[in-house]
């Protein structure tokens, strides 16, 4: 996972967005153990308290769960993961539609263009859309 942070948003919310993306894309597998807070903070290059805050929030939402002594794990609830994925996808679509409408395209034109469009690019803006997804 690439830990890059923008300047205009809190770090903990960007951590949450990155981890949701990781879970939705399967980079973090269902039931996989989440590294201990301090190790995870080191990987991401952030303050351990900030990482703790992000994990607590993910736990509150049910995407990760704690087992008293064994640590934290990614949820195994396939429905919840699908739901997260769908919300992230919707946010991507909204962000795309917003950008297209600022360029002056209507929905029908956009659908037409999608048909003729070339290959997908690497997806630089996923995280930003994930943050705006309001999950």
């Amino acid at each position, binding site marked *: 996972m690439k830990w890059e942070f923008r300047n205009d948003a809190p770090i903990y919310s960007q951590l949450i967005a990155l981890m949701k993306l990781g879970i939705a894309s399967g980079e973090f597998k269902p039931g996989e153990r989440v590294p201990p807070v301090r190790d995870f903070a080191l990987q991401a290059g952030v*303050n351990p308290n900030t990482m703790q805050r992000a994990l607590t929030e993910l736990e509150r939402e049910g995407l990760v769960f704690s087992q008293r002594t064994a640590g934290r794990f990614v949820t195994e609830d396939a429905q919840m993961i699908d739901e997260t994925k769908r919300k992230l996808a919707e946010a991507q679509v909204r962000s795309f539609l917003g950008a297209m409408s600022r360029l002056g395209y209507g929905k029908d034109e956009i659908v037409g263009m999608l048909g003729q469009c070339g290959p997908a690019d690497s997806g630089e803006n996923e995280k930003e859309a994930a943050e705006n997804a309001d999950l």
Partner: protein
Amino acid sequence: MPIFECRNLTKSYGAAPALSNVSLTVEPGRVVGLLGPNGSGKTTMIKLANGLLTPNSGEVLINGMKPGIETKKIVSYLPERTYLSEWMSAAQLMDFFGDFYPDFRRDRAEEMLARLGISQQQRVKQMSKGTREKVQLIMVMSRAAKLYLLDEPIGGVDPATRDYILSTIIQNYEPDSSIIISTHLIADVEKVLDEVIFLNRGEVVLRSSVDAIREEKGKSVDELFREVFRC
């Protein structure tokens, strides 16, 4: 009890005030950035906390105590200039720190020296300026202290080493101890800080958590700093 506290702290050099009536507290378990332009009082505050200067009025308390022998046991201090004896080797420095401080963890220091490829036999005299700074920081961070006071820990090293040093700081501090880092390289340290204190002309002009600044102002601490201290 706060690990670090200033109460109406005032210090002047002759007629020039360096700190004016500063009051603040730092709780255990926090990483705090002490940020301000040159001459804003950062080093003065850290020196007062170490008992290297005495205040004109007010007081500094470390874990409730005035600076002295007892506080030096729990404070690990990185001064802005290195004070390592030129003739010592890295191994001798570890002996030296081990003699002075019961909380010095030699195994940690050895591991970090090895990781940075610094030989234990190398003498300070033979080290570059950057290497000296790294060695000094390794010694300071190898103590299991309650409070780390780091005065410009990353000023003299390259960006790759900066990252290593910051991760070293995060990795080695105890969860219930606190770190105060004075620096003007804000963009580099911002991600590892819980909160920041902006000092200007000897006064605290802002005290906030990093994420609160980003949330409320929609900008990084670095950007806010440039705005507040625009010349």
